[in-house]
């Protein structure tokens, strides 16, 4: 009897709770299956909580801790998506991590941030990011 999700639509008004701050910045782009940037997507990171919307070219910037945990959870909402997508941004590769261990190498690579704290989210296509359902 749960309440179903609906798309966030194009008119979400960010700036709602404080955007969060952090000494480092995670940057990247949200891309559709054809490789085009996805504008007005909302990305939320946890922990700590931070949120940011994408620019018209699909790029985003999110504050992260200087020494982040091995991974942060990333929740993505976008116009046209009927529900949010969850993925993870790994900054290191803990050898015993249950998710990374379970994934084949090519899929695992979609969850690893590059050394300059860059992380692109691919909503589809050959390089589609691993998404998680809880």
């Amino acid at each position, binding site marked *: 009897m749960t*309440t179903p999700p609906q798309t966030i639509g194009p*008119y979400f008004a960010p700036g*709602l709770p404080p955007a969060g701050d952090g000494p480092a910045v995670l940057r990247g782009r949200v891309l559709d299956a054809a490789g085009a940037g996805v504008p007005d997507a909302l990305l939320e990171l946890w*922990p700590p909580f931070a949120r940011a919307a994408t620019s018209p070219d699909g790029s985003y910037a999110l504050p992260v801790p200087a020494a982040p945990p091995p991974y942060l*959870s990333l929740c993505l909402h976008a116009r046209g998506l009927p529900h949010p997508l969850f993925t993870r941004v790994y900054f290191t590769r803990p050898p015993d991590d*249950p998710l990374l261990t*379970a994934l084949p190498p090519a899929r695992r690579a979609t969850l690893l941030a590059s050394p300059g704290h860059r992380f692109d989210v691919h909503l589809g296509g050959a390089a589609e990011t691993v*998404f998680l359902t*809880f």
Partner: protein
Amino acid sequence: MALPPDPEAAELTGPLFGPAAAGPLDADLTRQHAGRPLGEPVTVSGRVRDRRGRPVRGQLVEIWQANAAGRYAHPADRNPAPLDPNFTGTGRCLTDGEGRYRFTTVRPGAYPVDGVRWRPSHIHFSLFGTAFAQRLVTQMYFPGDPLLDRDGIHHAVRDPAARARLIATGDPVRGYVWDVVLDGPCATWTEGSR
């Protein structure tokens, strides 16, 4: 692909925003400017629970909506309907000790999505549970709205019973009531979206 249980997963915890995230005036969208907004004043209230029926206490509820003419105070909205200088259309509050939220606003207008179709009156809701995996963004509708039958976004929820749970009860005089039940997190988690 099913994944092994991970009690340490970050998604099983979530942010708690605290009183600084929502002041008392943030829940009254009719008092955010010098004058009163145009349109029919309404209250929308309800309870937020998890799927075991437990109240979700002290959590952030955010709303955004069009004004009474069907126009969002958002730069991306190209609808020629007029802006209302006394209405921004965004609100937030924290649920109380019983999981209750309450907003005072005006009933949003329907708006055209192209030359033919219209969105029924709706309020966008964003909710946080105790776990990040419970994050919910959805839309609340008003009972008896004739535009609901032909709305593609409302019908994106295929199950009629689930779709009905997006429609509030009540009326403008008694106020609208809309309860929310957050899904997840499950004991098992999987790779792949729903």
